[in-house]
């Protein structure tokens, strides 16, 4: 059911761990739904120079976390914000339909970590600070859009 690329990123996840004194940290999902993603970013001159993650979740959740870190390292903050769940899924050669919400979670984790970075640095145009982390299981979108 999983592509070889998903299995590769699950078996050998890239960038697992934490970043000390990270510039932005985002945590999305909840344990009740069975997946939590925590993304750590190191940002220099508006460029993401390092990203690490910790994930509680299924194979797809781990793989989407792993590929997301690869997709954003070296990108500017704005470029990273433009990464969609579709791009995350495509980078893994697709995900089974029931697992598409995992790619949403990865996209949300990136956004939440960047929001945290913006809040900490007074760059935020949105003081709310919680874009996605309040979602409940029922709100998770299973379809790619």
């Amino acid at each position, binding site marked *: 059911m999983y592509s070889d690329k998903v299995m590769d990123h699950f078996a050998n996840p890239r960038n697992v761990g934490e970043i000390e004194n990270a510039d932005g940290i985002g945590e999305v999902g909840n344990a009740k739904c*069975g997946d939590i993603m925590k993304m750590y970013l190191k940002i220099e001159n508006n460029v993401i120079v390092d990203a690490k993650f910790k994930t509680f979740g299924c194979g797809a959740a781990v793989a989407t976390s792993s590929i997301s870190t690869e997709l954003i390292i070296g990108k500017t903050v704005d470029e990273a914000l433009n990464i969609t769940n579709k791009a995350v899924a495509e980078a893994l050669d697709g995900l089974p339909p029931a697992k598409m919400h995992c790619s949403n979670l990865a996209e949300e984790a990136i956004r939440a970590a960047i929001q945290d970075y913006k809040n900490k640095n007074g760059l935020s145009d949105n003081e709310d600070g919680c874009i996605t982390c309040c979602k409940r299981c029922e709100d998770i979108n299973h379809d790619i859009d």
Partner: protein
Amino acid sequence: MDRKTIYFDHAATTPISSEVLEKMLPYLKGNFGNPSSIYYLGRESKKAVEDAREKVAKAISANPREIFFTGSGTEADNWAIKGVAYSNKDKGNHIITTSIEHHAVLHTCRYLESDGFEVTYLPVDENGLVSPDDVLKAIKPNTILISVMFANNEIGTIQPIGEIGKIAKEKGIIFHTDAVQAVGNVPIDVNELNIDLLSLSAHKLYGPKGVGALYIKKGVKITSFIHGGAQERGRRASTENVAGIVGLGEAIKIATENMEENNKKLLSLRDRTIEEVLKNIPFTRLNGDRQNRLPGNANFSFEFIEGESLLLMLDMKGIAASSGSACTSGSLDPSHVLLAIGLSHEIAHGSLRITFGKDNTHADIDILLNELPEIVGRLREMSPLYEKVKRGKQYV
């Protein structure tokens, strides 16, 4: 199997044993006759079906005339519940079952609720046991059926079926039990236990898939389930799956004859696994009753990790098992059984079911016990929930 697998998922299905396959093959080759045909080939098939019926009856101490072959255990459950409900509508519309039944029972009951029936779903205790006293208290003047599974497919808990059967008999209510997981693992005498209807399946007993049976006690009022022929004395039309039925007969015969010896082995595998996993992996609990438990079932919850990831990592090591996590169920909710015994969603997501079979060895367990702590540890290191525990923060 084209790669070496250590198979620990016997509650999901079992391989057909070679003795069973041998008995089936003639009916897939030369003896292809339709049991309803009057010539020699037909009569041979008919004899084979009736011989299998006797074997199934003997295994549960029933009369062969009380055994009706079906296409699966699920079909037997559907037939038992809908059949009793519709043919006893004039007496009442209330059904009592439990919150930990297989979906074959639960979804059938929900369907009946949409058709005007009233269903009580009894709770279970933290070990998954149904209280006979709760059954008694749930009985109303309009109760027509009690359906309680013999042994649970996920956590292995064996229910006090004899006590519940006694209550049902005293109150004059029809009693059905889904014994798909129990047959061949637990001695069953339908008369002693006052069982009116019992569902069973071949593929859990080293028999083929696609064949099951429903025991219907003589005199129980139940409508026919499939219409269109005189097979199964007009109660379940369809040309018989002769090879499958022969396979069921042989499989159930072997399973019941070897039960004692087989259980001794399963218990030794199970108890060693439970003991060592609980000893060697912290933040782990056993799900299901420690004593009243199927001999081949071990079910654990590992905190801070998710079941599907665990299964994938075990699979990479050639170990096949299953989980009650949402990700393996195709929904966002973890197993209804694990929730019913009071586990939080978080803990239920981290469950692992290991079900042993006759071909497993202690060498298989050595491999499992060697790999499991490392895999759990690896997933925990990746988990943001475990991070909080390591830092001494309270786990929420």
